[in-house]
């Protein structure tokens, strides 16, 4: 139905019109940013855009790069590959961005990746987790842990909780499938028993039949992938049916909306994510405070990751004096970055290696539960593999 949208071009124009004032007249160095401002992922898109805008505003307030101001060129990709292709092409051909940042989902980011690679414009990906993205080539960089890695971490968490029999509930898209693949791999290594596996669609909010079946399965833990808009109703419905075992989610849950939707049922839910709200890192705490000040809302994983990806891009630009292309690629690849989601550096496939943060919902907020540190199990893929 979305393909029939007669408004899509107008919305693009509107998105552009909103984007322009950010840079003003002296804007010289352009950073392209594709983000789902409309459509089903618009809520994450909003967080992502706020995060990226904050990074650019802070850099500009500190004097910009090589005496020039930075401008964020924003395009709406509706988290859809077919919208991403023209948006990103325009960004490169017409706006002549020197670097791109993805604030979007895997589907659109995968489509955009090959275009950036072909144009030799570095592309820093915030939170899209599909493995193919960095495989598109050496101009790709990713600041978050890949789906498979997070899935393996989820299995490790189940083991650390002392549980063995798990039910797997998977959202049917790139995100869910790669998490499930990683979880199964980890479960096999760690000797967990997957009793049953279910899949559901992105648009599902009512899980009555699934909940009944999970109850009959009687697992010790539930590993359920999804976004807060699926997970909120799911967790609430699981608890309502009298299922009390731990529910383990991932960064898709990582939004204040999750607690708002699931209410008291959200208490005790565990999520593996990249943002540790209780971190003692001054960079993380400064980001959380600045974001709250700028937007009035608490930061989530998407905002923190998009801020980080933009920050990494700006850091590279500082080293090259605003130049893009191969110089920027090399600068990005060799840098190390202190960011709100931890200290990052890229491996030869331009993936990051980091610990997995486990957060738990306590008193309507995410707090630190534990940190999974297992460099072998959580190793990102490398070029050789």
């Amino acid at each position, binding site marked *: *139905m*979305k393909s*029939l*949208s*007669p*408004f899509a071009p107008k*919305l693009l124009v509107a998105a552009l019109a909103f984007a322009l004032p950010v840079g003003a007249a002296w804007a010289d160095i352009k950073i392209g940013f594709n983000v789902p401002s*409309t*459509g*089903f992922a*618009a*809520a994450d*898109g*909003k967080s992502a855009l706020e995060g990226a805008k904050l990074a650019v505003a802070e850099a500009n307030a500190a004097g910009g790069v090589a005496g020039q101001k930075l401008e964020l060129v924003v395009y709406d990709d509706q988290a859809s590959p077919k919208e991403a292709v023209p948006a990103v092409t325009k960004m490169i051909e017409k706006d002549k961005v020197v670097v791109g940042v993805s604030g979007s989902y895997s589907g659109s980011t995968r489509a955009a990746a090959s275009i950036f690679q072909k144009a030799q414009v570095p592309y820093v990906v915030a939170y899209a987790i599909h493995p193919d993205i960095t495989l598109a080539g050496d101009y790709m960089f990713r600041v978050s842990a890949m789906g498979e890695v997070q899935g393996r971490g989820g299995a490790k968490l189940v083991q650390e909780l002392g549980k063995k029999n798990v039910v797997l509930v998977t959202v*049917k898209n790139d995100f869910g499938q790669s998490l499930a693949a990683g979880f199964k791999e980890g479960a096999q290594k760690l000797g967990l028993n997957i009793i049953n*596996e*279910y*899949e*559901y*669609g992105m*648009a*599902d*909010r*009512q899980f*009555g*039949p*699934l*909940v*009944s*079946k999970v*109850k*009959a399965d009687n697992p010790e833990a539930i590993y359920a992938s999804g976004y807060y*808009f699926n997970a*909120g*109703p799911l967790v*609430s419905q699981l608890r*309502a*049916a*009298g299922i009390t075992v731990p529910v383990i989610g991932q960064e898709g849950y990582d939004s204040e*909306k999750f607690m*708002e*939707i*699931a*209410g008291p049922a959200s208490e005790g839910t565990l999520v593996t994510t990249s943002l540790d709200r209780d971190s003692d890192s001054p960079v993380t705490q400064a980001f959380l405070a600045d974001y709250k000040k700028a937007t009035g809302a608490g930061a989530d994983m998407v905002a923190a990751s998009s801020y980080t990806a933009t920050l990494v891009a700006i850091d590279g630009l500082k080293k090259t004096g605003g130049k893009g292309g191969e110089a920027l690629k090399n600068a990005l690849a060799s840098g190390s970055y202190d960011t709100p989601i931890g200290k990052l550096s890229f491996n030869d496939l331009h993936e990051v290696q980091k610990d997995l943060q486990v957060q738990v919902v306590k008193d309507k907020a995410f707090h630190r539960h534990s940190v999974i540190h297992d460099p072998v199990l959580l190793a990102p893929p490398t070029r050789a593999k």
Partner: protein
Amino acid sequence: MLFVELVAQGLVQGSIYALVALGLTLVYGLLRILHVAHAALFTLGAYVGVLVTNASGSLALAFACAAVVAGIGGVLMYRLAYQPLLSQPPFVALIASIGLFIAAEEAFRIVFGAQGLSFVNPPLQGQVAVGGGLQFKQAELWMMAGTVLIIGILAWLQSRTRIGVACQATVTDPQMAESFGISLRKVRDINFFVGSALAGFAGVWVALLNNLVEPTMGDVPSYKALAIIVLGGLGSVPGTLAASLVLGVVEAFGTIYIGQILDRNAIAFAFLIVVLMVRPQGLFARR
């Protein structure tokens, strides 16, 4: 046990489908328009329900407001979008309807925000044990009871009151009805109002069940309700009701036993294809 639970969950889902699809079938029976934008009124009802409950604390008031606002929205859609197109072929109105629906979704996003809204203190969330290990949310039980009540009242109105009979007459033969002094315009307005009010009502129930209303929450009902009215034999009210409940139950089992092969939302259409191959006039058509 699981069997009973799945049937019960299917009926809960089926009741929602019934409320949404009823309005659609009324419109189709009357004007032969596939009213995709109907689902936007479902979303509108849900938003009004949450906003009014959060502001006033009264769920009853919220239901009333949601039904009235959605009802008026439906009449406006008819007057502004469909009435000028009645002389055109049906696909023209269908395209207008799709356009209206997309515009409405984006309008919800702009006005209410992309993140969606939730109840501050969600009502009717308590658990009711029905015996034998079966457990329901209060909202689920109320919803099924409410659906039965509303449909009962509608059936009574349609067969026992003057305006109900006028509606039926208009569906059967508009020209003849008009020559008997029935105002077509009035009948159409009433039909849109009642059908849309039902969708608004359903929106509030879904908001209660999920504690989340979003701009895109009408996406699935928009096309699934079309499948339901085809299943029910286009324009047939009892057929639509039966098709809604059957589809709810088929989906409940399908999600569990063939969910890995077929998406929940694809099940509706697979079921539709099978039914149309065997009974092209629809499951419950009179012909």
